[in-house]
């Protein structure tokens, strides 16, 4: 399966580049969210700048990165003309599952972040920031598994 996936036409390269870049930016922006919110949580949410930065990175950074990753994935698949055994392969299924379920979790985290940002102005929003931080860590862990599936390509 790895060999099948390794043999690819040059027309796939650019869409694949966008997909991989989007995935890396997605991990990076989630890392920024998780780091900032964890640091703020450790200081009993007294670091308002870090909380705001962490929450703002969700709609401003995570969402565009996710869109780039997802468009790149679909474009890559449309160019590869994968044979049916590859289309049905577990690794591709894991990729779609984590991408689509991840979109729902990201959407929830973004809604929490936007409400949290509003509440921060009046001194609240820390529970929402906690929830958004936990979801970001969960997403990061899920994407490590996805990277494993996309690279090792289990049948």
């Amino acid at each position, binding site marked *: 399966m*790895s060999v099948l996936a390794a043999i690819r036409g040059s027309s796939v390269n650019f869409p694949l580049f966008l997909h991989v870049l989007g995935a890396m930016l997605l991990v*990076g922006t989630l890392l920024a969210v998780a780091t900032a919110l964890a640091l703020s949580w450790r200081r009993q949410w007294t670091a308002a700048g870090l909380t705001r930065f962490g929450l703002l990175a969700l709609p401003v950074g995570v969402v565009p990165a996710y869109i780039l990753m997802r468009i790149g994935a679909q474009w890559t698949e449309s160019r590869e003309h994968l044979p049916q055994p590859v289309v049905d392969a577990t690794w591709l299924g894991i990729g779609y599952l984590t991408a689509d379920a991840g979109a729902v979790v990201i959407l929830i985290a973004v809604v929490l972040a936007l409400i949290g940002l509003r509440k921060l102005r009046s001194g609240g929003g820390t529970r929402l920031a906690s929830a958004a931080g936990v979801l970001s860590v969960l997403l990061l862990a899920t994407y490590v598994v996805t990277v494993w599936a996309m690279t*090792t390509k289990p049948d």
Partner: protein
Amino acid sequence: MTLYDWLLFLHVLSAFVLVGALTALWGLVLSTRPSAPMLAAEEAMRFGRIAGPLVGVGTMGTLVFGIWLALDVDRYHIWDAWIVAALVLWAVAGGTGARAGKAFAVGGREAGVRLQAVNTVAVLAILVLMIWKPGA
């Protein structure tokens, strides 16, 4: 999982750590603009103390597992032009990344941003080489 599977996974995971941490550091740069700082200096330092070393971990991981992969896989050789080019770019990225970290630590924001930009361009060029593999 075979040795090849493990090496490829760890190589790609290291690349994700590298680009991910670089992305987080760019977020830090944007949020500490002198014209509209979102983070206090102390908050920025705490964040940088986590993201900065992760760039180093990712940089070393991509090199070690990348070279190991090139030695392990018959169809690639360490002297292939695209691998040599990636190693040169890796040296540029590593050197400028380390200097950027030092510049930011002593308050040299302008130099730090410039060096981090060179580092990022080199990392992106490596990603292009890894996907296109010219001459492979």
